[in-house]
């Protein structure tokens, strides 16, 4: 017997595929390092202390050790710009979070470097008690990055008074870690006052800027190289202390230095998605129209850095509502600093909102799909701005049709097959479209070959294929005839490969450059080269947003779960995602982005939770056995499709971002399906067997 063979989806096979499949694509840790010293970080094991006292005497005597650097040994460094947190460890002796580096061992081989790191003895003076999420106070950001912390329209109290049905509940999401399979790595080499760094980053240009600032150099004196990133998902976006410290160590040691974080260090060195606690109150009138929406949210952040999850804002593009009240808070706690993680903001936020909408639909006796269709907004419900495009209805209706939503029994706990309770759930979703300026260079030579150059990194989204396709279309060649050169700060500057913005930004720059080349060729030139930049409209903010237009990508996700009636074990049996995300450049790679994203949602729903140990002020399991991400067996066949959408307001390409779209709403759809299957409403993520067992009678 053989497994059924499904034909591949049409589209451009990745031009970066052969190198990745042959094992010859060089990630940072694969770059030949010559005589580079191997660095190992020694990290604090307490969350907060006045002073870490480092005894490196035994380590310094160990075989192969060139140096052990502590706060006493490093040059003055400025840590500013696109940095992950507000303090740079090892510039003083204070311990500000568990896992912060307190010493850096440099040795000739990995075995010797790691062993010497084991020999470093660290003691702590003035260890302070842990301030945990449950005990910390709500605070407001001093400089809100994601729009106002308090936002609203109308009068929610009035809206609730007008409602016939009101639901309100508190939802929680867990601390999660990005856990790319590639640990962050840095290889730094100085040549006089010029610095070359191979670094696992989502922006070579931002990394160059931070390093230049750190060492008081001009940008031109720093080169950052990173063609391939082995997954980032947000944790390689901002520039973290270990990257700067590695470059500083190389300068101090007078030799190239390379560092690869251990898996355990990945849990404290480059961010995480912080736990959130969200309260949603909704009201609906007799016709099933939303009369009031209140969404209050608070998330954990570190003691020294402001990071706020903008969980509350997606409602304005999903629902019409005259009365809305949104509030966003943080709590400073003893932990390493959080950072955006696929998907930030709407990711945790839509779990709460779309669970609450499901609860409201049941309470009002309405089908959850019908309820959403009844409440579609005509304009942004908060600002009144028109939508650039808004294909949510098409996503809901066509997704429901493909999924077979109309065959759903209205009552919960109504379907059983063998040992399993079967449930269907759905959620609507929207992703704010963030846009950033980028530039690119395009050249066509006399032999008809096209070369595209842009600083951008290939992180798995398929950027080389996207850029080849865009240039090929304009210049009327095959994508296979386009060479794309990327991943080097010497190439034209591009925005961060983050926030689902790269295709819009870099792709649009390539489009404009290719058009300029075409014009030159039309003028009779045999060869032509042009560089172009693209950025969001005049008057947009730092995230590419403009008040006069509401720009979002949309989707609807439908899930069937099967819950073991005796054991409470949840498995997702099938899933359909319908998306409106602007023009899709490469359907093959775009489908993979969406199925991958859905799996991120499944992980959020059912598996991913970094338990924070309040007593010791640390994440309890800093490994991939204790922090479970989905494996192949967790993931069913995933049905994804795109509805027609072409948003030339968002970008000249007509494209929008997709990478962070697909994880959205999945956790709510799963929770809603679990309720439909079992009658048990779980309001905390991930949904675990203990959550279900109590509410499930044994039968």
């Amino acid at each position, binding site marked *: 017997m053989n497994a059924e063979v499904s034909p*591949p989806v049409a589209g451009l096979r990745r031009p970066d595929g052969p190198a990745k499949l042959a094992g010859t694509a060089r990630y940072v840790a694969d770059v030949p390092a010559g005589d580079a010293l191997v660095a190992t970080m020694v990290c604090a094991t307490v969350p907060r202390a006045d002073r870490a006292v480092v005894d490196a005497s035994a380590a310094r005597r160990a075989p192969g050790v060139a140096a052990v650097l502590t706060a006493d040994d490093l040059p003055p460094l400025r840590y500013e710009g696109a940095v992950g947190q507000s303090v740079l460890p090892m510039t003083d002796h204070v311990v500000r979070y568990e896992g912060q580096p307190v010493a850096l061992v440099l040795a000739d081989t990995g075995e010797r470097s790691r062993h010497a790191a084991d020999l470093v003895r660290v003691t702590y003076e003035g260890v302070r008690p842990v301030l945990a999420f449950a005990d910390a106070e709500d605070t407001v950001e001093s400089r809100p990055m994601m729009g106002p912390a308090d936002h609203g329209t109308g009068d929610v109290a009035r809206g609730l008074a007008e409602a016939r049905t009101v639901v309100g509940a508190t939802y929680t999401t867990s601390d999660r870690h990005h856990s790319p399979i590639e640990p962050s790595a840095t290889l730094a080499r100085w040549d006089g006052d010029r610095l070359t760094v191979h670094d696992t980053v989502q922006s070579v240009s931002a990394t160059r800027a931070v390093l230049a600032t750190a060492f008081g150099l001009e940008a031109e004196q720093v080169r950052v190289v990173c063609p391939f990133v082995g997954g980032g998902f947000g944790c390689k976006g901002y520039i973290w202390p270990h990257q700067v410290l590695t470059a500083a160590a190389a300068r101090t040691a007078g030799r190239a230095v390379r560092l690869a974080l251990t898996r355990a260090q990945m849990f404290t060195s480059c961010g995480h998605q912080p736990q959130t606690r969200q309260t949603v109150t909704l009201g609906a009138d007799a016709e099933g129209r939303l009369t009031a929406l209140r969404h209050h949210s608070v998330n954990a952040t570190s003691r020294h850095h402001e990071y706020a999850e903008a969980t509350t804002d997606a409602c304005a593009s999903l629902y019409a509502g005259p009365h809305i009240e949104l509030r966003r808070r943080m709590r400073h706690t003893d932990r390493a600093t959080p950072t955006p993680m696929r998907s930030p903001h709407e990711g945790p936020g839509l779990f709460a909102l779309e669970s609450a909408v499901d609860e409201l639909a049941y309470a009002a006796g309405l089908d959850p799909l019908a309820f959403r269709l009844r409440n579609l907004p005509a304009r942004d419900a908060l600002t009144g701005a028109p939508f650039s495009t808004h294909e949510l209805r098409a996503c809901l209706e066509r997704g429901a049709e493909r999924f077979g939503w109309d065959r759903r029994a209205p009552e919960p706990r109504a379907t059983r097959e063998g040992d399993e309770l079967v449930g269907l759930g759905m959620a609507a979703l929207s992703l704010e479209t963030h846009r950033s300026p980028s530039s690119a260079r395009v050249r066509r030579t006399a032999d008809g070959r096209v070369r595209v150059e842009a600083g951008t990194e290939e992180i798995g989204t398929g950027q080389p294929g996207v850029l080849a396709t865009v240039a090929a279309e304009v210049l009327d060649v095959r994508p296979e005839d386009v060479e794309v050169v990327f991943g080097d700060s010497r190439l034209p500057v591009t925005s961060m490969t983050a926030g689902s913005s790269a295709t819009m930004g870099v792709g649009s720059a390539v489009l404009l450059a290719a058009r300029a080349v075409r014009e030159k060729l039309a003028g009779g030139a045999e060869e032509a080269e042009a560089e172009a930049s693209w950025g969001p409209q005049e008057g947009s903010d730092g995230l590419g947003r403009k008040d006069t237009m509401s720009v979002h990508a949309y989707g609807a996700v439908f899930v069937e779960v099967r819950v073991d009636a005796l054991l409470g074990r949840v498995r997702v049996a099938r899933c359909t995602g319908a998306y409106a995300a602007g023009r899709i450049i490469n359907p093959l790679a775009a489908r993979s982005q969406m199925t991958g994203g859905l799996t991120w949602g499944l992980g959020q729903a059912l598996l991913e939770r970094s338990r924070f140990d309040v007593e010791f002020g640390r994440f309890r399991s800093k490994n991939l056995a204790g922090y479970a991400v989905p494996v192949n067996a967790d993931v069913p066949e995933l049905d994804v499709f795109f509805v027609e959408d072409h948003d030339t307001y968002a970008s000249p390409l007509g494209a929008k971002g997709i990478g962070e779209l697909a994880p959205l709403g999945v956790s709510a759809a799963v929770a809603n399906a679990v309720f439909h299957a079992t009658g048990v409403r779980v309001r905390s993520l991930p949904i675990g067997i203990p959550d279900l067992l109590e509410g499930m009678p044994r039968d």
Partner: protein
Amino acid sequence: MSTHSELPLLLTVNGEKREVPDCDVRATLLDVLRERLGLTGAKKGCDRGECGACTVHLDGRAVLSCLTLAASARGSEVTTVEGLAASDGTPHPMQEAFHTHDAFQCGFCTPGQLMSAIACVREGHAGSEAEIREWMSGNLCRCAAYPQIRAAVAEVAAVTAEGAEGEAR
């Protein structure tokens, strides 16, 4: 009985005899491949046997090179992703199928996935979609190309089975 803290290590890697004259006995097979033999295809994702990115074939079996002491692999035959293509450079059918089905994204786990996928077919665990799912679960893919990986494995399994039938005839 003689004990060693450094050993001369002789391996056959991708069909070639390779020698590491003074191998630290603490070194894992993964570190020897990457640091001493310049074969960086196998990746260090966790170094604790929790991700599968370091999967290689050791005497024909898929194993985790991060949990294999290089010294204990003395005299063994090792196949890494670099050894999959034919000598003329033609990709292995599994590499081709991964490309066609878009069974990878960032590519970092891909060498390990390929080694497991080839073992999965060879050992006869690709008989159904459910079986492939289970037998490919020792390799994490954070980009989550899982359905595409299954499609690639199923395709190669089907072609392999056809080939075997053809030979039988």
